[in-house]
């Protein structure tokens, strides 16, 4: 049976067919839907949201050591978090097949950098597969477990946004029921206990494993030639393969590489020797090209093609063939940008509106919807480095501001899911080191940015089962911080009071702004605690003085019409949070039930 699937659905399907027993991930675009789709098979596969990527990697490694087939999935920056266990597990080899997905994001549609994680395979000395289509996502995810077990290696499936979120046809297969492998304590001591004496031996075995993988790469079905002509040869991998086919069609021959670490250097040399002009077409870094050059193989690659941003078919056509499509020329000056915004009724808005007014502070923020707090008109953010960095960077900055003696205070801002990810380490560190850091956890009761996944604070697991709900307030109290306040961020006076209170303390403090995401499906507990949002706000035009104060909240439901010098509210969008009504100086914004 053939069905239309995204790459992420296909990876989930392939892992299922490949006999995966356990899978864990932390949500991150463009990888999130892998675990969401795997939870469809929860009778056969245990599926979990881990608190962060390292823990996802740790748990999948543990499952593999104990003899199960396991999968971890993450976006590319998540691999940075998870790299520590990965590099050592590469030494150990595997027991049950071990596979992880690195979903890269060229063009940074939803990421803070565009690192090319193919280098991780080389760095960690593990096998790598790079699918180009949904069918290959399925086939490779399925095959990866066998490759892992046969060659005793972790396997990385490296995808990119267009592969993860692109849809194409997939032929489905049946699940392989792999026997759970035996495990005993002797095996643990011999292979899975990375003390120096063991690791020195494993280090040698690792190189032996790599040379076997090199041989396998030469015959692997995922590395194949499509011969058309000896005029132009193209070596390519990942989504760049389908782009190259789009542009060159049958006017070139292809060496399509799907198993890209270790590379099949004999196959590459052989192909290169048969064509007059050799192009290496790859997205982001010159990973393939560098290996060719090291082997003394002449090719044309990044001297013509960009290494920055997405590689699109039109870029290949222009840079390699000098072909540019005719396009419609029109007056672009009319266009007004449409940047993403916090949704109408977003509980972050009230917090950012108030904190943005405070002078002589630095706002160290984090990764999540609240990253938008720095945009116009709120401008309530200074920094955003990576998941969980807010309290750590905030504390370090506070130390230097203290040296400067200008009274600057630092506010660390993170979401609830980010708090449990790695944010809490920074908070603990600040408390331990006697900082006066003000930590604000914007607790919208979900992992919102990636599409509402559960986490330890929500009380539900990835498969929807009820579990122990962890209280952020209790956690920070257990860390030794007694300056803890929970506020409703839709009530601006509460926000103002809490900020003032925290600024007057010379001790660490934590403000938890607790209110559910406006576009999330409320749980029964949410409805009980917060009630349904049934109000709507509207502008009484008689009273509106056109001061535009309400527009400073950045609510997308509010529209100031310059011709009339009045604001209006889009009733379909408004959820009645009343933040605009609270900022209106003449009470022109009214609430109806």
């Amino acid at each position, binding site marked *: 049976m*053939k*069905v*239309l699937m995204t790459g992420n659905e296909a990876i989930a399907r392939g892992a299922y067919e490949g006999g995966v027993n356990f899978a864990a991930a932390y949500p991150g*675009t*463009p990888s999130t839907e892998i675990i969401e789709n795997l939870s469809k098979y929860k009778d056969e596969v245990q599926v979990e949201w881990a608190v962060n990527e390292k823990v996802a990697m740790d748990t999948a490694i543990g499952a593999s050591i104990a003899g199960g087939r396991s999968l971890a999935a993450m976006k590319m920056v998540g691999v940075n978090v998870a790299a520590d266990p990965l590099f050592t597990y590469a030494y150990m080899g595997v027991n049950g097949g071990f596979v992880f997905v690195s979903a890269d994001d060229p063009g940074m*549609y*939803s990421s803070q950098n565009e690192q090319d994680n193919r280098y991780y395979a080389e760095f960690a000395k593990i096998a790598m597969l790079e699918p180009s289509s949904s069918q290959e996502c399925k086939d490779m995810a399925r095959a990866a477990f066998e490759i892992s077990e046969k060659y005793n290696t972790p396997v990385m499936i490296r995808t990119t*946004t*267009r592969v993860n*979120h*692109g*849809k*194409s*046809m997939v032929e489905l297969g049946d699940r392989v029921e792999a026997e759970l492998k035996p495990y005993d304590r002797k095996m643990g001591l011999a292979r899975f206990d990375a003390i120096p004496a063991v690791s020195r031996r494993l280090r040698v075995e690792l190189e032996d494993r790599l040379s076997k993988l090199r041989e396998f790469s030469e015959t692997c079905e995922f590395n194949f030639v499509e011969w058309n002509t000896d005029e132009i040869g193209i070596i390519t991998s990942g*989504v760049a393969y*389908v*782009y190259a*086919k*789009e542009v060159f069609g049958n006017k070139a021959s292809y060496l399509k590489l799907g198993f890209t670490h270790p590379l099949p250097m004999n196959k590459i040399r052989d192909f290169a020797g048969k064509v007059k002009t050799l192009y290496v077409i790859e997205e982001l870094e010159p990973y393939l090209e560098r290996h060719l050059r090291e082997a003394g193989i002449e090719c044309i690659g990044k001297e013509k093609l960009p290494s920055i941003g997405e590689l*699109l*078919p*039109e870029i290949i*056509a222009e840079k390699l063939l000098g072909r540019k*499509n*005719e*396009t*419609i*020329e*029109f*007056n672009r000056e*009319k*266009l*007004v*940008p*449409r*940047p*993403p*915004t*916090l*949704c109408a009724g977003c509980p972050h808005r009230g917090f950012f509106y108030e904190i943005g007014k405070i002078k002589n502070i630095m706002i160290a923020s984090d990764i999540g*919807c609240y*990253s*938008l707090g720095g*945009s*116009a*008109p709120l401008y309530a953010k200074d920094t955003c480095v990576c998941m969980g960095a807010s309290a750590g960077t905030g504390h370090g900055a506070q130390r230097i501001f203290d040296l400067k003696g200008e009274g600057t205070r630092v506010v660390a801002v993170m979401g609830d899911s980010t708090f449990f990810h790695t944010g809490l380490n920074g908070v603990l560190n600040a408390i331990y080191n006697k900082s006066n850091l003000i930590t604000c956890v914007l607790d919208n009761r979900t992992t919102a*940015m*990636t*599409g509402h996944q559960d986490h330890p604070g929500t009380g539900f697991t990835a498969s929807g089962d009820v579990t122990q709900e962890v209280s952020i307030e209790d956690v920070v109290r257990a860390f030794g911080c007694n300056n803890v306040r929970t506020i409703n961020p839709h009530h601006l006076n509460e926000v103002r009071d809490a900020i003032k209170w925290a600024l007057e303390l010379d001790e660490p403090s934590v403000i938890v702004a607790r209110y559910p995401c406006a576009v999330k499906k409320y749980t029964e507990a949410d409805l009980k605690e917060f009630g349904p949002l049934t109000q709507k706000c509207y502008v009484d035009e008689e009273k509106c003085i056109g001061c*535009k104060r309400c*527009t*400073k909240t*950045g*609510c*997308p439901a*509010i*529209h*100031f019409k*310059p011709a009339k010098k009045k604001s209006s509210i889009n009733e*379909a969008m408004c959820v009645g949070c009343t933040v605009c009504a609270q900022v209106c100086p003449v009470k022109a914004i009214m609430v109806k039930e």
Partner: protein
Amino acid sequence: MGVVNILLVGVGGQGTVLASNVLSRGLSEAGYNVKMSEIHGMSQRGGSVFTQVRFGKEEVYSPVIEKGKVDYLVAFEKMEALRYLDMLKPDGKVIVNDEELPSAPIQAGLAEYPEGILEELRAHADTTVIPATEIARELGNERVMNIVLFGALAKLLKLDDIDWKDVIARTVKAKFVDINLKAFDRGQELVV
């Protein structure tokens, strides 16, 4: 027929993804080769969004359409139609919802919603303007605007081998089937 390229554009939350799901499902079930590409994540929060669908009887390689190769540009919002106009083939067709959604700088009074967008579109391309939001509101649910536009697109595609109503009925939630089928009919009627 060659590979047909369709670009659906709009504002996050307008339902471009559902429309493209109906489209790609109908096409794939009818045996066409289909590839689709969309972007999720940060860009969806009220920002400009797009979905690309490519199909044909022959093999389709790239999920992404080259600039200047779009056959049908379906815009759920006027300004977004203009934003992506350079993706259109010079003889491509535009279907545009006659709706203005102000973006953040406009809402804040820092810029004006541009005038004369429809004129600009018509000056450059074969443009069909459809009051899809208004029609959807008349039908009783503004959200079915996406299927009104889809009905218009389906009429232009002239794929008589696909029973789109059957596909819609199997794709949307049971309680919304009737209103979506009405929306589809209204969209079809608006294209000659």
